[in-house]
């Protein structure tokens, strides 16, 4: 075997420089890991008025029916969130559709991705079921299909009819702002948030009208006007996830 032209010291030097460069490139790439959602066009947002929500759970049933969700999983649970005076306050929690979503950052196969209108979509054909997104979500909004859902959905047809395919065993699923209704409604010329057929099922079914949906980029939409007129908050906004679900607090006056 012929002796290599360079000696070991030079070889090590070059390697060290190379590895450092590689590491440096990684650091730079990581720094831009969380690009915010490409904006423009529409930006969907959901607003829930907690002074009206009475915890009836109709939204849970409608969501279950329209998205064919098994009874063990809830995309949009209604949680108890304290009390104002002697009235209990409730908080329905869909997926926050974060603009800086931890789940999109960590998915190894990019099965979670941003849509231009702000919805964080799931590609159920690509998901390998590693559950990293489930671990990463600060809101616990994701659910893994531990088993296949083969039975009749108890919420159908009383609360609606399935509009999307059932997910198979072994993938993680979550709320997607009923994108199927939004897309179909837009194609038919309807306005999501105004026309019920183009609006997420949970918003439509609410019997007390506590939920609103619309385009934040449209200053005349209900959600824009509500957020301008009333104080709102988002969950764990301190974490920098940029959620798109807003809550209008219940106060002593309006509870």
């Amino acid at each position, binding site marked *: 075997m012929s002796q290599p032209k360079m000696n070991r010291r030079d070889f090590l030097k070059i390697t060290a420089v190379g590895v450092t460069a590689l590491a440096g490139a990684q650091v730079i790439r990581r720094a831009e890991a969380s690009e915010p959602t490409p904006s423009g066009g529409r930006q969907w947002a959901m607003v829930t008025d907690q002074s009206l929500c009475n915890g009836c759970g109709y939204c849970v049933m409608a969501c279950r029916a329209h998205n064919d969700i098994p009874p063990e999983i809830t995309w949009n649970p209604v949680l108890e969130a304290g009390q104002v005076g002697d009235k209990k306050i409730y908080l329905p*929690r869909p997926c926050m559709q974060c603009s800086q979503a*931890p789940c999109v950052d*960590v998915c190894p196969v990019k099965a979670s991705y941003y849509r231009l209108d702000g919805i964080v979509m799931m590609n159920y054909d690509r*998901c390998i*079921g590693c559950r990293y997104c489930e671990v990463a979500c600060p*809101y616990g909004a994701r659910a893994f299909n531990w088993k296949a859902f083969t039975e009749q959905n108890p919420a159908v047809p009383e609360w609606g009819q399935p509009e999307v395919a059932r997910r198979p065993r072994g993938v993680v699923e979550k709320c997607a702002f009923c994108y199927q209704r939004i897309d179909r409604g837009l194609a038919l010329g309807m306005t999501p948030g105004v026309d019920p057929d183009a609006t997420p099922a949970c918003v439509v079914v609410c019997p007390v009208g506590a939920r609103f949906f619309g385009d934040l980029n449209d200053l005349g939409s209900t959600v824009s006007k509500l957020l301008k007129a009333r104080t709102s908050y988002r969950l764990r906004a301190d974490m920098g996830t940029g959620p798109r679900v807003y809550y209008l607090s219940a106060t002593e006056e309006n509870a």
Partner: protein
Amino acid sequence: MKIRLKLSKLSPWLAWLIGLGVVIAAGVGAGLIVFWKGLSVTNLTDLIPWGLWITIDLSSIAVSAGAFSLCAAVYLLGLKRYQPVARTATFIGLIGYTMALLTLILDIGRPDRFWHAIVYWNKHSLLWEVTMCVTLYLAVLVLESMPIFAQFEWLKTRWPKLAEKMSHVHHYAPYLAVVGLGLSMLHQSSLGAVYGVLKARPFWYRPDISVLFIISAVAGGMSLTVFASMLSARLTRRASVDDSLLEGVAYFIGWTLVLYLYFRFWDALSMTYTYQPGRTEGLQLLTQGPLSFNFWVGEILLGIVIPMVLLLYRPTRTSQLWRMIALILVVGGVVAYRWDTNISGLMIVLSYLPGEPIVGYTHYFPSLIEVFSGAGVVAYGLLTFSLGVRYLKVVDHRAMEAHVEEKELAEHATAASTILNVKRENVKRNA
């Protein structure tokens, strides 16, 4: 009467193989149940989606780290005499990474889609990076192990040309070592960063967790290599070791443990200052709660402090028994560290409702199916290593690679001739 005769004919080797075979069979059975029925047969939940299998996966990759560190020492730092130890470590690395892949196949929800990570990239995802690096590094390990397989007698007689070609791969060992070093440093620390970048889990969200993972991996990997070598040498004459080499590695492991303890100390201490919801509770779980035995006894006392003392104190380092005890304790500590890290972060359930986050706790204990399939994977590792020792001379410090010996001789010859020339010069001058 007949049964007694059969038992007396059972050699220890055969009994070992049969024992491992039984465990592997149970593991295969459990694995098939998992593929058939899905992950609902485990005790994993949406709150704790990662459990025993991920711990085994992380631990396998960690204890395979001896391969990259020893190969880097041999080929990049010029410590040629450790080459036989590096050889053992490479083989252990190969086994370890296959164990990790087996466990991962079990653990992901869609095993049929395991190839997605290779085809669909998300460069921002640390888990993607780990998958890619593990896959590439497995290829590196396969190449680095080819000279080992080339020693297989049956291969040498059946396909001598192939065996020779495989043996020649050793010429590229330095380049493979460089690539292996780079890949390993990336993914060993990325495995820690998989936990460390999650802002949703305050107990994990720190930058030093990747450093802890790689240091513990180096310590654990080398420890397993030396321990396995020593154990094989005690149990069979097919394995022979040069104790001075192993003592040298053990000394290095001792100092690695010092570094590891230093980092762990500051890592834990820094978390005690100021209450942060989620993080403080995590530390409490670890130091005073259900994980306290694992942490104080398993990780710190038995995993770091006692082995560190044993390996740095010459009388115990030179003693076979004490050295082996210290090394196996290090490996145990590394496994305990990964279990504790994984479970402590997931046990804490932070509420996201408005106001101060309320901390709740959940619990997890592996189900029988998880235990059996995990044990099956570990038994597979033990089996492959045992077969390697018996048939592939994996632990054999007599058989340094041919060309490395040439090189050593050549270097000695060059040194010798230089000295000779200088002496001649002196003689000429003096004459």
